[in-house]
């Protein structure tokens, strides 16, 4: 009530009292005026509503109605709007060249793992990189990529990246850091750098090496050391053993007719694997009946990608491989101590015979995890076979400063223990996590007065350092690195650093007293210095454009073999209990990709496991130790032990257990932390890759592991169709007789005639190595979400293309088959007829299309898909909230929401992009204009896409190949994704029965 009301007239209190006394029950009153029912009060009550409102309905006329309606409409419109935050829209005053909104641009840059660069082209939409493709001109890529490079784009946008400079766990800034560096410089200059140690990863970058050289010139007593947990120490030692000098070895698999891999996974991972896969498969493509194929022998402990491609595979422990190498060397006429030529009788004889018969056209390749002796023997064998200079080339090492990294790290650790390290600058790497157990790096680090760590994530090492600096992602910075053959790959930024990152070049420059120099200045200045005179601008522009410096590959050299080195080798190792074999993880590598959800969820090529790194054992060992898959065991080695779940892997060497590095992280992002177990404690600086004498104990606990394929046999169904080369020559169309296809003319309705395009895909199973680059390429291209470990356990992974892996034949040494399965885009698609709402329909070009907006999620289509390629969003899997991940999305592909089905579209967005281009130019789409993401990434070009109606297209040609077949054709699905049957080229001497 209005407080002034009381002033309107006197209140008769007596009558009020009387009124209240008379009233029955409880009377509620708001004010004395109300109680008194004074006339003023009544008036006021009536006046609560302003005049004209109460009687408005009576007075309503046309004008008034229109006024009111107009006003309501306007007000309704107002209330429906959220106030937009003010944004400044600034048009380009001068648009960048070739910058057309809606059209992506591609920039050449490089992606380096362990210092070895792969040339890539990065797709950029309006200044935001979204997808990585291979650089067709780069020698290491030839247009293809591996899974790591494909997933690198996710690391760029990883919301867990280190974002700010941290000092002692508190947010600081570059200004503070640079001030601290300045202070430190003065201190160090006075001491000539004594006690100043720099630890980097393997440096192949000429610019960074030059910067470090400059630093060491300023601080002569400073020390620069490199450490790479998955490095090539033993290859380096092997070269020194064989040639007396370090050398980089490159292989020409294209020219090899016989290849022997001593545990070298040259098709799956490691330097040059993308190029090697292309070259190796080029020597295996059957063309006509008179075809020739190379032959691959693999001796390895755990089946790898390369092992799955082998024509003959021999499971052996690391010690066994060493003995095998010596025995083989002896057979090839190289005297080696302890060679037992009776070892693996038939196999050894067959390999030796085959190598000798193909002298000069064979390759013996030793894996990075094999000891120096095996590498040296491989060099000697290649020399003895006359391969060196033909299929095996040697160059100077890729590293700017080749050194025994384990020894360097040991030296650093000892110096730290002796408290002689005053300042430690760790550029990249995560030594606290990755250092060999015997070095006690974590404990010793404590003695260093000033510790600085720069890295992409806040990791175990950052936690223990005074300064933790965010590093730039390679796609945010300038740089250079050498490819597998030494070609200098230039890296240019695709985007300004998302967070306050700095490149190692800039950090070193700051210590050099040049804190204002940018990475671009440094790289450019270095190369300008290398090219005095001449037209530097055009050289620079061309090199940046191409992504590498032409003619920078290291020249081949032929170092003389250290004759008689073999005789000096120590006696071969003997089996001593169970051997532990330590390997980099196929998808997480040394742990650097542990926070990359794509790689975590990528099924490992052979085990098909995700999110975990179990201890792999052979079925026979599991039987002896009574282990089941999922049992948690303790692996004891000397006085160290780790706990790991068991995974029984057919084809694993008996008496050995393989563990993979990279898991069991405690820091480094919310994806990295918590997955798997840490295998580094089993590793020592002297025995980094294998150690015998392990004891295995069961703990009695069990865990479930997230595997995407739990059944490993084809159950006698003709899914992967394979034959030997001999059988193929006799009956080239053998695959077509292994299944049944109903005659389309038996159908009730006439077959649909495609007038225009008729898309189809062909997948060559003879070329597919199972490397799974296609899976990540598809994930990146099509905005496919990561679902996490628990959802994978429940069978809800979302990959649109998967690589099925089957074992066949012998349990202890099975043949391993891989088969990529995208959508088959069936002509008579079973999914289409059962959708109640027309959400999946057939296009006039033969695509089986998925209309997300229309999908109501009955999942009937997925049930009825015999290939099980349909993926359902059981939850809201796509991350709709994290801002940085929004930048990652391909703008041409819908981000799906909860409750809808999705599946492979044959990259319909790329088809339509090509269509628009062709229509602009008034022509038909040419063969090769459309390359789906999977096909583009494939290192072996196993996937071919195109128009089946165009008789000159590659895919139409392949569809007439005698090896061409479809799977489950007996269901009359008439798939348009077809396969080319796999061929093996076994040695007749080894083929039993």
């Amino acid at each position: 009530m209005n407080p002034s009301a009381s002033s309107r007239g006197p209140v008769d209190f007596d009558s009020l009292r009387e009124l209240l006394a008379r009233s029955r029950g409880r009377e509620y009153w708001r004010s004395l005026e109300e109680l008194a029912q004074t006339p003023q009060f009544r008036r006021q009550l009536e006046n609560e509503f302003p005049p004209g409102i109460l009687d408005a309905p009576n007075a309503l006329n046309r004008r008034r109605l229109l006024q009111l309606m107009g006003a309501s409409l306007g007000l309704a419109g107002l209330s429906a709007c959220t106030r937009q935050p003010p944004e400044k829209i600034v048009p380009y005053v001068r648009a960048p060249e070739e910058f057309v909104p809606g059209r992506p641009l591609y920039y050449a840059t490089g992606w380096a793992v362990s210092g070895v660069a792969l040339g890539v082209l990065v797709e950029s939409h309006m200044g935001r990189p979204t997808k990585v493709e291979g650089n067709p001109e780069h020698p290491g890529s030839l247009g293809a990529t591996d899974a790591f490079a494909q997933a690198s784009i996710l690391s760029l946008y990883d919301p867990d990246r280190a974002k700010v400079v941290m000092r002692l766990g508190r947010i600081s800034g570059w200004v503070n850091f640079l001030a601290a560096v300045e202070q430190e410089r003065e201190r160090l200059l006075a001491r000539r750098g004594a006690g100043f140690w720099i630890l980097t990863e393997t440096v192949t970058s000429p610019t960074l090496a030059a910067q470090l050289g400059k630093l060491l010139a300023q601080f002569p007593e400073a020390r620069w050391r490199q450490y790479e947990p998955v490095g090539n120490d033993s290859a380096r030692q092997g070269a020194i053993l064989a040639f007396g000098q370090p050398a980089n070895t490159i292989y020409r698999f294209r020219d090899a007719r016989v290849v022997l891999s001593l545990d070298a996974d040259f098709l799956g991972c490691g330097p040059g694997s993308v190029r090697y896969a292309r070259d190796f498969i080029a020597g295996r493509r059957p063309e006509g009946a008179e075809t020739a194929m190379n032959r691959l022998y693999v001796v390895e402990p755990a089946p790898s990608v390369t092992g799955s491609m082998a024509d003959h595979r021999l499971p052996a422990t690391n010690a066994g491989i060493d003995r095998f190498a010596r025995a083989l060397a002896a057979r090839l006429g190289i005297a080696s101590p302890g060679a037992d030529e009776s070892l693996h009788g038939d196999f050894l004889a067959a390999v030796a015979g085959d190598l000798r018969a193909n002298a000069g056209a064979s390759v013996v390749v030793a894996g990075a995890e094999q000891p120096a002796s095996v590498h040296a023997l491989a060099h000697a064998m290649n020399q003895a076979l006359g391969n060196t200079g033909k299929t095996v080339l040697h160059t100077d090492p890729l590293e700017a400063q080749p050194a025994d990294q384990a020894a360097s790290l040991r030296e650093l650790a000892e110096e730290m223990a002796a408290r002689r390290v005053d300042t430690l600058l760790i550029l990249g790497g995560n030594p606290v996590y990755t250092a060999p157990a015997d070095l006690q790096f974590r404990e010793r680090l404590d003695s260093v007065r000033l510790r600085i760590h720069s890295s992409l994530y806040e990791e175990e090492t950052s936690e223990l350092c005074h300064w933790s600096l965010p590093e730039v992602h390679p796609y945010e910075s300038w740089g250079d690195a050498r490819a597998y053959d030494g070609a200098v790959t230039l890296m240019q930024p695709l985007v300004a650093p998302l967070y306050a990152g700095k490149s190692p070049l800039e950090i070193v420059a700051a210590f050099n007293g040049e804190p204002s120099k940018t990475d671009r200045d440094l790289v450019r200045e270095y190369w300008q210095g290398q090219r005095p005179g001449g037209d530097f601008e055009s050289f620079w522009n061309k090199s940046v454009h191409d992504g590498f410096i032409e003619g920078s590959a290291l020249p081949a050299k032929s170092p003389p073999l250290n004759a008689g080195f073999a005789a000096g080798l120590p006696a071969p190792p003997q089996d001593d209990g169970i051997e532990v074999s330590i390997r980099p993880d196929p998808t997480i590598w040394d742990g650097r990709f542990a926070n990359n959800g794509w790689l975590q969820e990528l099924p490992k090529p052979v085990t098909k496991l995700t999110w975990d790194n179990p201890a792999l054992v052979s079925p026979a060992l599991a039987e002896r130790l009574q282990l089941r898959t999922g049992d948690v065991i303790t692996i004891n080695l000397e006085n160290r032990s780790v706990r790991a779940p068991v995974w029984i892997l057919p084809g694993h060497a008996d008496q050995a257990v393989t563990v993979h590095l990279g898991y069991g992280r405690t820091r480094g992002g919310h994806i990295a932390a918590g997955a798997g177990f840490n295998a580094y404690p089993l590793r020592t600086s002297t025995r980094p890759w294998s150690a015998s004498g392990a004891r295995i104990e069961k703990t009695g606990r069990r865990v479930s592991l997230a595997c995407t394929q739990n059944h490993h046999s084809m159950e006698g169904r003709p899914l992967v169709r394979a034959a030997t080369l001999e059988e193929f020559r006799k009956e080239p169309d053998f695959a077509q007789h292994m299944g049944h296809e109903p005659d389309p003319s038996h159908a009730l309705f006439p077959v649909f005639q495609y007038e225009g395009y008729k898309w189809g895909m062909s997948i060559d199973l003879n070329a597919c190595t199972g490397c799974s680059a296609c899976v990540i390429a598809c994930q990146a291209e099509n905005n496919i979400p990561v679902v996490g470990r628990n959802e994978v356990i429940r069978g809800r992974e979302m990959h649109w293309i998967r690589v099925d892996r089957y074992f066949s034949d012998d349990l202890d040494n099975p043949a391993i088959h891989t088969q990529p399965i995208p959508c088959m885009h069936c002509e008579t698609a079973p999914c289409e007829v059962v959708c109640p709402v027309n959400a999946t329909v057939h296009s006039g070009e033969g695509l089986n299309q998925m209309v997300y907006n229309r999908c109501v999620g009955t999942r009937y289509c997925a049930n009825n898909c015999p290939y099980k390629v349909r993926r359902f969003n059981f939850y809201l899997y796509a991350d709709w909230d994290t801002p940085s991940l929004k930048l990652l999305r391909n703008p041409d592909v819908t981000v799906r929401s909860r409750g809808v089905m999705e599946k492979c579209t044959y990259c319909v967005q790329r088809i339509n992009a090509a269509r628009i281009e062709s229509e602009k130019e008034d022509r038909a789409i040419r063969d090769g204009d459309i390359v789906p993401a999977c096909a583009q990434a494939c290192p072996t070009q196993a996937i071919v896409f195109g128009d089946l109606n165009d008789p000159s297209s590659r895919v139409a040609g392949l569809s007439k190949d005698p090896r061409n077949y479809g799977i489950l054709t007996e269901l009359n699905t008439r798939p348009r994704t077809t396969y080319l049957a796999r061929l093996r080229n076994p040695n007749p001497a080894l083929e039993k029965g």
Partner: protein
Amino acid sequence: MDSDQRQESVGVDDIAPVIAPGHDYSTVTDQISTIVLTRRTPRQWLIGFSIAFVVSMALLYSIAYLLLKGTGIWGINNPVGWGFAIINFVWWIGIGHAGTLISAILLLLRQQWRTSINRFAEAMTLFAVACAGLFPILHMGRPWLAYWLVPYPNTMDTWPQPRSPLVWDVFAVTTYGTVSALFWFVGLIPDLATLRDRATSLLAKKIYGILAMGWRGSARHWYRYETAYLLLAGLATPLVVSVHTVVSFDFAISIVPGWHATIFPPYFVAGAIYAGFAMVLTLSIPLRAFYNLGDFITMRHIDNMAKIMLATGLIVGYGYIVEAFMAWYSGHPAEIYMIANRLQGPYRYVFWALILCNVILIQTLWSARVRRNVILLWFISIVVGIGMWLERFVIVVTSLHRDYLPSSWGMYYPTFWDWSTYIGTIGLFCALLFLFLRFLPMISIFEMRTIVPQDGAPKH
């Protein structure tokens, strides 16, 4: 009703009458209507209803959580896209079948023993269809768009896809629900009028009066009523066959091994009637005891229902044999593997439990002693209900979890939410049934009066 025929049908069966001797029109009316019109709600009813209500609240909670999170809360996954939701849907729909069968087909066949059980069988049908109808909507990824399965002119210019059995399902189930509801309500009208006339409370008078739609029981009313009821029965008859046939098409139309079988329609219909009668027995045996309705639901009823259960159970058993035979006869490795996997695979326990429930235990019904032992029969009816649920589990899950590509094989494990949703619908079903028992006559009064032996003259 034709009295000669009635007497004949009573006279033929001298084992047991369809109504105990000694009843006349008024005792029938009294006994049945008192259950509803009593002022005192029995304590047992309160307890029973409270439990059922609480359980149905679990359903509500589960649905809320489902809508919030998505179908991921269930155990379904990539090979097994359908799980409990579809199993429960088929199970509930099947249970509903007995009602229609009893109401329509037995009416047309003039099987008068149906009279005392048809009312609550119809009610049961209706409630079962209500429970069943929830599942196809809830199992969708985006249930709020369920209406897209209904053909209606829309701005999207898109119709449902008529080749999909799920669209047929929409028609089949909605028709079934509508006709069942109509049939039940029309059958209730004379009894609602009786209740209106006998009710003492004004509110009950009003409500029953509105529901009775002005029924006065005039000859003309009766004449039209009988015609309408017969016509509705004629309408409902094909539904007995059609609904479960269409439901079976959800499976049979697909190419999944274990689903793609021509035996499915008859085998599903038989299974539905089987499950339905099992449920009628499961409900009527305790009701009969609790409300002292032994005079109306006599041993003759019990015996007949047990016989029907045995007959349909044998058809179902035959269906299992034919499935296995056809899988072998197809010669397709996936089909053959499907049967082998059922017998020996990871879900073999479910399969063998199903055989035990649905095939082996019901063989005891050959014995009249078992058929007349109500307690034993009650247990068997429950076992059959479980067996039929297991059958749907076997069909849905074991077929999907291992189909064509061994690489994609997987397992299905139901989650807490699968169970809570399923049990919640049982709660809903029971709660509705309790309300029905309390507020509507569970046995058709007027139809019972027609089978009262006519010693005396009609009282009206």
